[in-house]
């Protein structure tokens, strides 16, 4: 019956989930605040022009609309670009340190599969103006801490660096088509097809073997670092090895190294990362929940060259996981429902207000029928699962316990609550 009134890819958040979502958002916002991040917000609409030249988001994935001046707008498909623009507009000094956090919905008009979520609820941080491994370490560390903070233990961060492959490919003479195809194969760890694809190419055997091995450069950080050294063909690649080993050291100091593994098979296809990038996983959950990295070239678009690093968490995926594992914070606060006779209205409102000043949830209803009927209908309503029910009639207050009505003095409610 509702079929015509719902859209695939968009959904309601029920009250239980919304409560959990808010709790989680509060915890994370507090965490970021304690690390010095300022919370900000950017508009839901952006101009199409902002994204049209951005390779990271295909234009077909944008929700477009036209405003009354004929300008093409899009629903914000990403948080990083607007936050970067905001930093560039309000803080023109490129050396300034700027730390922003945000919580927002983003929208992607994915064409398939039909049921995929198109409204994505994100929370994240962006750290501008600092290009050191300490900054990367702080951002990765906060990504780990975010999940730990909300009670998830099986956290994995997979850290890569897009430069490693880019600098390796600089040494090889390949057409842009060959390069893109290989990048895609490497990203998908498609070892079989890489072997077939490089066979007819005009490359040395050593180079071919190296390309075929790139997808296997992942796993335990120290082992991978050793393997990486054998790949270095130029100073830039050595620089990458040095940089990620420094970040790893930083995470060791933070006591978070155990959560990190490396994967040098990440490329910068379909994203704006220029340096390190990482994904956050939770054990037994098939999709990444965190995505982040360094994007030192993005701010230049807005006239201010400025290094930056950040991440975003997909909150709905996190909540789905926590629900499955029974980790969600549950609303356990009881609520008071006071039914009153018309004559006792003033007293009912006084009692309810008193309760509210003590942070107790209280609601008042006029008695319309039989008391038993009111009790039964409230008990059947899942929204009043933990409700304490009172009746106020002729100046006397009764509390409902089981099927009994026990009389109570109004000051006794307060005492109970205290």
């Amino acid at each position: 019956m509702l079929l015509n009134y719902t859209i695939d890819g968009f959904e309601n958040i029920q009250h239980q989930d919304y409560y959990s979502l808010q709790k989680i958002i509060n915890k994370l916002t507090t965490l970021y605040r304690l690390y010095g991040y300022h919370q900000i917000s950017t508009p839901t609409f952006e101009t199409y022009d902002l994204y049209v030249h951005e390779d990271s988001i295909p234009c077909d994935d944008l929700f477009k609309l036209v405003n009354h001046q004929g300008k093409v707008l899009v629903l914000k498909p990403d948080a990083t670009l607007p936050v970067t623009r905001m930093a560039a507009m309000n803080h023109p000094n490129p050396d300034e340190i700027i730390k922003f956090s945000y919580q927002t919905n983003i929208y992607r008009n994915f064409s398939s599969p039909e049921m995929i979520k198109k409204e994505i609820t994100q929370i994240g941080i962006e750290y501008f103006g600092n290009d050191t491994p300490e900054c990367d370490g702080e951002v990765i560390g906060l990504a780990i801490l975010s999940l730990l903070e909300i009670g998830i233990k099986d956290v994995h961060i997979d850290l890569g660096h897009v430069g490693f492959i880019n600098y390796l490919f600089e040494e090889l003479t390949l057409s842009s088509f060959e390069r893109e195809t290989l990048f895609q194969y490497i990203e998908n760890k498609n070892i079989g097809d890489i072997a077939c694809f490089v066979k007819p190419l005009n490359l040395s055997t050593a180079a071919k073997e190296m390309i075929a091995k790139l997808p296997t450069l992942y796993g335990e950080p120290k082992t991978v670092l050793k393997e990486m050294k054998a790949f270095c063909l130029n100073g830039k690649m050595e620089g990458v090895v040095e940089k990620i080993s420094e970040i790893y050291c930083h995470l060791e100091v933070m006591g978070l190294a155990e959560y990190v593994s490396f994967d040098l098979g990440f490329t910068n296809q379909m994203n704006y990362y220029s340096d390190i990038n990482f994904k956050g996983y939770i054990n037994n959950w098939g999709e990444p929940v965190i995505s982040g990295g360094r994007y030192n070239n993005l701010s230049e678009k807005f006239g201010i060259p400025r290094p930056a690093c950040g991440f975003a968490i997909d909150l709905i995926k996190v909540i789905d996981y926590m629900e499955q594992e029974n980790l969600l914070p549950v609303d356990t606060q009881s609520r008071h429902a006071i039914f009153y006779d018309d004559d006792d209205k003033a007293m009912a409102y006084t009692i309810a207000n008193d309760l509210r000043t003590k942070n107790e949830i209280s609601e008042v209803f006029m008695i319309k029928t039989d008391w038993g009927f009111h009790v039964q209908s409230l008990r059947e309503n899942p929204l009043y699962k933990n409700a304490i029910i009172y009746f106020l009639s002729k100046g006397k207050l009764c509390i409902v316990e089981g099927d009994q009505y026990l009389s109570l003095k109004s000051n006794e409610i307060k005492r109970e609550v205290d």
Partner: protein
Amino acid sequence: MVIRFALAKGRVAKKAIELLTELGYVFDDYSEKSRKLIFTDTTGTIEFFLVKSPDVPTYVEKGAADIGIVGKDVLLEHPAQVYELLNLNIGRCKMCVAGYEDRPLPYGKKMVVGTKYPLIAKTYFNAKNQLVDIIKINGSVELAPIIGLSDCIVDIVESGNTLRENGLSVLEEICDISSCLIVNQVSLKTKRELIDPIIQEFKTQL
């Protein structure tokens, strides 16, 4: 922790189960006629279930299965965010354009293509700058050119017998197809100690 396989029902699953048995995994509760949906090996380290082939990438992408074995044709037609680690030596065949040998394909004109693989067909012809009308057909694709529904078909060709019996032949080869071993992107990292040895064993079979 158990490693879960999603196998594409039919030929591919049969070969894959043979391969797993060769690798030393024993499934004593499995028989082709069994109505059970999920089977565990005697050591309890791996289990598998059989699903329709286009569902395999979905199960693996979502992490409901750690590893999947499915034809490359399915991966090309239903792209999924998975690692396509190995091309296995099972289910080898070719994706081809087939039609009548004495009737050249109407390049540069309107061309109608009947196929089970609309995405593959469209990508192939568009790369050759040929616009095509695609008619999606779910089975007996060979029928389409015979009764004049389409100029040609795009389909998997293994021996070519069906084509020959119906007077059709391969006009163009699109790509090689074999079964692929695909792995969930998170499982490969978080269950590495368990998945790596399995992949190595599959590699030795190649």
